[in-house]
């Protein structure tokens, strides 16, 4: 184990310092998220509440885009869920490391589980790493260090996300509407999705979704979005299940 096993304090601060580079990269993203909300005419308190309650950048941007288009509630919530489904994969991977926690701490650590937090913990404490015998004092200490390390990193991430969102929300109220800051939302999505299209099946999925979206824009209540997403996922999963060697 890379951490000194006897110092809780150092585990917490080690988490803080390890997460710092990611936090530096996150600050502009948080400011853009906040600014996009209020520049698009969203109530500042609602924008702040969103970063606190949802606490997930990409889905906040999706929600802003849909809320200012007056999409129906179910469509907005379904989109937030779908954009955040990747957290289930993190949850499955990280669950064994959180098994010893109390129920309250499980929920707290779940709330704090974001992309960077997952990357941080799996880099420093790889799952299945059992260098200590179960039940021993040393093993207890490793678990405690791991918890403190995770809480150190994620607490800094959380605080800086809230601050950068708040700064953005304030800036957004000052930015004139003709700056078209809401255009940052699709741009962020493009930047997120393009590197994620790693196989031909992924490309076909995106192509089907975009085509379906283009042909269903006339549908009311943003139902085109749901149609496009379902069509894309269905084609992707179907191609994947046929295991055609399309990679």
């Amino acid at each position, binding site marked *: 184990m890379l951490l000194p096993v006897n110092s809780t304090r150092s585990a917490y601060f080690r988490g803080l310092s390890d997460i710092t580079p990611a936090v530096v990269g996150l600050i502009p993203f948080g400011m853009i998220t906040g600014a996009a909300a209020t520049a698009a005419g969203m109530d500042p308190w609602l924008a702040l509440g969103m970063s606190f309650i949802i606490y997930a950048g990409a*889905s906040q941007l*999706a*929600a802003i885009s849909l809320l200012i288009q007056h999409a129906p509630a179910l469509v907005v919530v379904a989109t*937030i*869920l779908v954009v*955040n489904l990747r957290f289930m994969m993190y949850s499955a991977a990280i*669950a064994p490391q959180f098994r010893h926690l109390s129920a309250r701490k499980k929920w707290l650590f779940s*709330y704090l589980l974001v992309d960077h937090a997952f990357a941080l913990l799996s880099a420093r404490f790889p799952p299945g790493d059992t260098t200590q015998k179960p039940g021993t004092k040393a093993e207890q200490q490793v678990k405690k260090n791991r918890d403190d390390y995770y809480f150190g990193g994620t607490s800094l991430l959380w605080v800086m996300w809230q601050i950068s969102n708040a700064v953005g929300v304030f800036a957004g109220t000052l930015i004139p509407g003709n700056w078209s800051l809401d255009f940052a939302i699709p741009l962020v999505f493009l930047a997120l999705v393009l590197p994620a299209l790693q196989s031909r099946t992924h490309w076909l999925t995106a192509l089907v979704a975009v085509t379906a979206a283009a042909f269903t*824009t006339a549908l009311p209540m943003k139902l085109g*979005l749901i149609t496009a997403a379902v069509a894309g996922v269905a084609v992707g999963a179907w191609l994947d299940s046929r295991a055609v060697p399309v990679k």
Partner: protein
Amino acid sequence: MTGDFYAWTIVCAGGAVTLLARASFIVLPPETRVPKWVQRCLKYVAAAVLPALVLPDVLFRDVAAGQAVNTYRIIAALVAMLAAWQTRNIFATLGAGMATLWFLQYFRPF
């Protein structure tokens, strides 16, 4: 749009489903398994949803009178895609796209 009850309800429900996704396997019994077909669908969710969200935001926002689509936004999005392709960097992508849009909206070349 104001911070009305409707929007707050959406945000709270969105927060609830997000927390449930995060907590799912952490709070479920350890023996819980995901069916194969669900795993398969999860793999392609981002590739389907994000482009479907992008399309209307690029094509149909702030469309000028007498036009079917927002040409400036389409061009700016294509430049941003090129930047994303070349740099794989979120801020380079944002910068390229916003700069192109501002340039076109300011000079209105066509």
